């Protein structure tokens, strides 16, 4: 009864041919279109490089000043602002300033990219049930597939460097903002929407006047999640040539440098906490008008 004890596998050779065919197919694809893709993403690369240089060339007190100002604008809280300034001072003092700036640059660009691409997709999903049905499984795959696996085609296509790293980060980080934009719009009070219809609002007036403003708290939760997940990808992205705090962490793993790994890891944590607190308090302030007075 060999059939039951041994799984009826595909023939070894056929399997090898299948894999080969897929590899060859993708290799041909990347040879033909790889350059086009690179050109396509070039503006993004230039922007990323420019932003990173800007952060590094600016004297550190100004950078900290700007960060403090942004934190204050977002959170309107002395505690969070002061905490952020201290965190950056400690990071700089411990010699991680340059890596932190590189990470900051890629996280910012990745977040902007995710917002620009993700929100329209979310809007589309909220408008058409079919779009939702088609896109949801794609998001599931993007979120659950081990990140190393999609690094392979990205690297094959674009080589090693900042752009493939950025794309890898975005693939991992974009699902929350898409999902929460969709959810937020779908959760908008039907009565309010009916009122908009009854006054003759067209699709654009409905979307920008009612749906997006009312979905904003949810959309902001999505932005927050996206930033957190992007930070989580920093170490993996450093494997394909993204500079930043991930590089020393990787070095620490291969050489068993405990202190180095710990310091850089904690720097990532500090960034994450700052981003999280600022974006969360900002999101809460957005819906302040709904907090006071719940009657009616």
């Amino acid at each position, binding site marked *: 009864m060999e059939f039951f004890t041994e799984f009826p596998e595909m023939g070894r050779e056929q399997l090898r041919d299948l894999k080969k065919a897929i590899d060859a197919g993708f290799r041909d694809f990347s040879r033909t279109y790889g350059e086009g893709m690179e050109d396509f993403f070039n503006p993004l690369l230039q922007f990323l490089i420019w932003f990173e240089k800007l952060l590094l060339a600016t004297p550190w007190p100004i950078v900290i000043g700007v960060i403090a100002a942004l934190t204050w604008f977002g959170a309107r809280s002395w505690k969070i602002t002061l905490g952020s300034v201290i965190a950056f001072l400690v990071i700089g003092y411990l010699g991680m300033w340059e890596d932190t700036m590189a990470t900051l640059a890629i996280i910012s660009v990745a977040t902007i990219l995710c917002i620009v691409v993700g929100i329209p997709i979310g809007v589309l999903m909220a408008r058409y049930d079919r779009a939702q049905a088609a896109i949801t499984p794609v998001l599931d795959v993007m979120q659950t597939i081990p990140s190393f696996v999609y690094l392979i085609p990205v690297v094959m296509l674009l080589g090693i460097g900042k752009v493939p790293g950025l794309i890898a980060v975005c693939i991992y980080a974009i699902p929350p903002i898409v999902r929460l934009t969709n959810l937020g719009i779908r959760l908008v009070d039907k*009565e309010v929407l*009916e*009122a908009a219809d*009854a006054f003759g609002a067209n699709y654009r007036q409905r979307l920008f006047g009612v749906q997006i403003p009312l979905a904003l708290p949810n959309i902001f939760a999505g932005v927050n999640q996206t930033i957190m997940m992007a930070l989580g990808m920093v170490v993996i992205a450093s494997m394909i040539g993204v500079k930043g705090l991930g590089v020393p962490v990787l070095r620490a793993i291969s050489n068993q440098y405990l202190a180095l790994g710990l310091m850089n890891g904690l720097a990532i944590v500090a960034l994450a906490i700052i981003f999280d607190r600022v974006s969360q308090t900002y999101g809460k302030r957005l819906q302040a008008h709904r907090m006071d007075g719940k*009657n009616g």
Partner: protein
Amino acid sequence: MAEPKLRIRELYKIFGDTPQKVLPLVKDGMSKAELLDKHGHVLGLRDINIDIPERRIQVIMGLSGSGKSTLIRHINRLIEPTAGDILINGQNVTQMDAGELRDLRRFTASMVFQHFGLLPHRTVQQNVEYGLTIQGIEGADAANRAGHWIERVGLAGYEDRYPGQLSGGMQQRVGLARALATDAEILLMDEAFSALDPLIRTEMQNILLDLQEELHKTIVFITHDLDEALRLGDQIAILRDGEVIQKGEVQDIVLRPADSYIADFTKDINRARVLKVAAIMEPGRKLTSGAAIPASMTIEQALTTLAAAPDGVCAVVGPEGETLGTVSLQGALAAVAPAPPADAEAAESQRYSA
């Protein structure tokens, strides 16, 4: 009476997957229960015909599930009819394309909702401006017009508050101001005051009546509350299970209920306060001596004068003092006792023959 502003003609609404397929069955008289049972479709409205005169308040009354909210949403086509016509100023709403329909909603008919439907992220001022923004009116013009209506509904000083900071009654004032600000000639009010507590509700009714005195809009007012219907309505249509079972003037419905269902409805109301002398007078007869009672007076107000009159008979006069007829104390007392429904005799004889 003026030419009807708004006519609803043979309107049907069936909810379900294939309403057109079951429509003939409904037209042949299949009952709501049978339709649901055999075909899985819900009958929303059946053969609705209502003529709504210009500049009057038409109340549509019914209990929950009677289809009244469905009906009002057909007027601006928030719900698509299965069959039938809705004519506004002679234009058929059911034939309108998307653009015409938007214009209808923007300029001709505005709406007030039971749960207000205000935009929580906008201030009172911005909410009242909403309809104007949709029309494309911005800036100072919109602000002035909105400001005017905010003042008219008594919300001056609250312009910068958010709806969440206001009480229910105040929120509905915002809803009313928003609907009035578009200058639409038709006002659709879907149980607009039902979510408010009784005192506030009376207050809002007063505001509406005061405004109507001056604005003379064509108002379609939905309610489940008979007192409200009698107070506001120039005309009332009563809806049950998606059908109009009686329509007419307020006095008519109270004095001559079409069936026991409506009689039941009207039996608890204070008839002396609702009925007008005009509805119970004997027309034609002239009486020159004694006190005269204006025809628009309620029986309650007339009673003292009647009781003081020599043989309990008074002349009834119109608005210009012309004599219209007479009214007697007995007549007034008889009218205050609940009237039997038109189908009472039939029901009675059925009971005996069974």
